[in-house]
């Protein structure tokens, strides 16, 4: 019998701890599929972050270095400079990258650091229990913005893919979603492009995933997917914001 679906080699054979309907599992799988697609499992080192994705090393069958909260881009810089032949990526949530680690992210991009950042934006702090994130939508109630985010108090949700597309060192910056099969297929295509940018030594590559958090959004999985479509995508448009041509080597 022909096998049409299997676990990527780069993922371990263990169940995810993620909540039902959470997109982390899907994004993990996409990343693992790309690692397999380019046969990178034996030459990949990941800088993990702090948040729901902290347990990466339990799921990915690759070398992983834990980073202090927000500092994954700096840790990845140290790894990549020491191991230029390895594929090096970070996997960071919105609190990690867009709040605490924004300096590390922007400067890694500006140096044209030849690493890939996988950014998971679910508009909320997941692991600590649903507090406001830098990407929390206007009006969205969280445990620390109980009356809804008000730009007069808390400012606006930050658009990281656009922001990082502005630095000269950024070779690739895009935003994708995985809330529908169509978006998921497109997300994989975009993610592959980001991988290829690093494999061609073109510099910094960045992919923002719009992700759901049904638990902290207090929604069902279906409602959460719908929210990504109805609320997030209009504010955080999907697309490629920066793409150096293949021949444009640093």
């Amino acid at each position, binding site marked *: 019998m022909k096998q049409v679906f299997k676990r990527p080699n780069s993922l371990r054979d263990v169940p995810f701890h993620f909540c039902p309907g959470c997109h982390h599992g899907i994004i993990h799988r996409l990343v693992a599929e790309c690692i397999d697609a380019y046969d990178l499992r034996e030459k990949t080192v990941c800088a993990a972050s702090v948040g729901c994705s902290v347990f990466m090393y339990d799921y990915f069958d690759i070398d992983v270095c*834990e980073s*202090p909260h927000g500092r994954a881009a*700096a840790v990845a810089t140290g*790894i990549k400079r*020491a191991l230029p032949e390895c594929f090096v990526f970070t996997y960071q949530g919105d609190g990690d990258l867009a709040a605490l680690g924004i*300096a590390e992210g922007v400067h890694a991009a500006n140096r044209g650091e030849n690493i890939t950042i996988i950014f998971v934006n679910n508009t909320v702090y997941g692991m600590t229990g649903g507090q406001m994130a830098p990407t929390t939508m206007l009006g969205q109630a969280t445990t620390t913005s109980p009356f809804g985010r008000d730009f007069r108090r808390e400012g606006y949700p930050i658009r990281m893919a656009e922001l990082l597309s502005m630095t000269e060192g950024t070779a690739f910056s895009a935003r994708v979603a995985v809330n529908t099969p169509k978006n998921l297929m497109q997300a994989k295509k975009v993610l592959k492009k980001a991988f290829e940018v690093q494999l061609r030594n073109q510099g910094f590559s960045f992919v923002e995933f719009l992700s759901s958090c049904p638990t902290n959004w207090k929604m069902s999985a279906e409602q959460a997917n719908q929210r990504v479509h109805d609320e997030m995508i209009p504010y955080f448009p999907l697309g490629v914001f920066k793409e150096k041509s293949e021949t444009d080597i640093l």
Partner: protein
Amino acid sequence: MSKPKVELVNGNEAIARGAMAAGCKFYFGYPITPQNEIPEYLSKHLPDIDGTFIQAESEIASINMLLGAGATGARAMTSSSSPGISLKQEGISYMAGSEIPGVIVNMSRSGPGLGGISPSQGDYFQATRGGGHGDYRTIVLAPFSVQENYDLTIKAFDLADQYRNPVMILGDALLGQMKEPIILRDNKPGKFDKPWALTGAKNRKPQFLKSLYLNEGDLTQHNWKLFQKYQQMKAEIQYETYRIEDADMVVVSFGSVARIIKSSINMARDKGMKVGLFRPVTLYPYPEEILRRLSQKVHHFFAVELNTGQMVEDVKLSVDKGSRVDFYGRPPGSIPTPNELFDEIQKVYR
């Protein structure tokens, strides 16, 4: 044997050259007075050996780049001065927790806050008591001359690899800025097996470096393991004694003050006062057992520091009960002269 190579260099450059002699190929830092000759030298010379120099966006980024490079098994270093070292503490804690080696240089200045750029020993507690969060220790080496800046930096890399632990060089502005002739070594960098290093999981199982332990009992076990390691570090204790054989009173000082007070001790000896010096070179692990044994022969100790009283606590914890421990501290602002410290010796000597 060929004639040793002697050069006149300043203390910061001696550290940079010690690092290169130790095979350090990666440096990450952010400018701050009074240690800028370290990044300046390495930015110029690391490319000679295909090394990497990054002027990072912050001290926080620097320490985390060090963490990343160290995680691959590479020899790497960062340097800063007091306020910058405060920013690095989180990273140092993670390195200790994940058992990632690396060398951190603190050519300390004065605080608190922005303080000033004059020499100070106000970072003794921060260096020896962990500095960051959690029950960890950092090996701390305290040079007192430009030659020791060079020699102890070489040693720091070996200790970091041997114990899989961050190692700190604690100097100060005086030791960073002064020039002295030093003997350069034809050093063969120590070789250490690093099966734990992250290099891509080729022909082996994937591995990870982490400090998060949530399963019941795991963190306890991890902390005990670290504790065992800290116990083993006692084998590295290093200190200097000077004219203590017949001493009635032993001065205890480290770093630049130990250097200045040596002259004061000679003055005291010329006046017939039996005074000696005990100089800890490793501030962690502190030579407490040596000091305890010394306190069975000598019963009067005089701790002298460029702060208002930090290392004196370790002296008190080390010596036998019944020993007298006097203290003279100098807050930052001016460096005491040998004459001034001689006066202080005279005040407490009996």
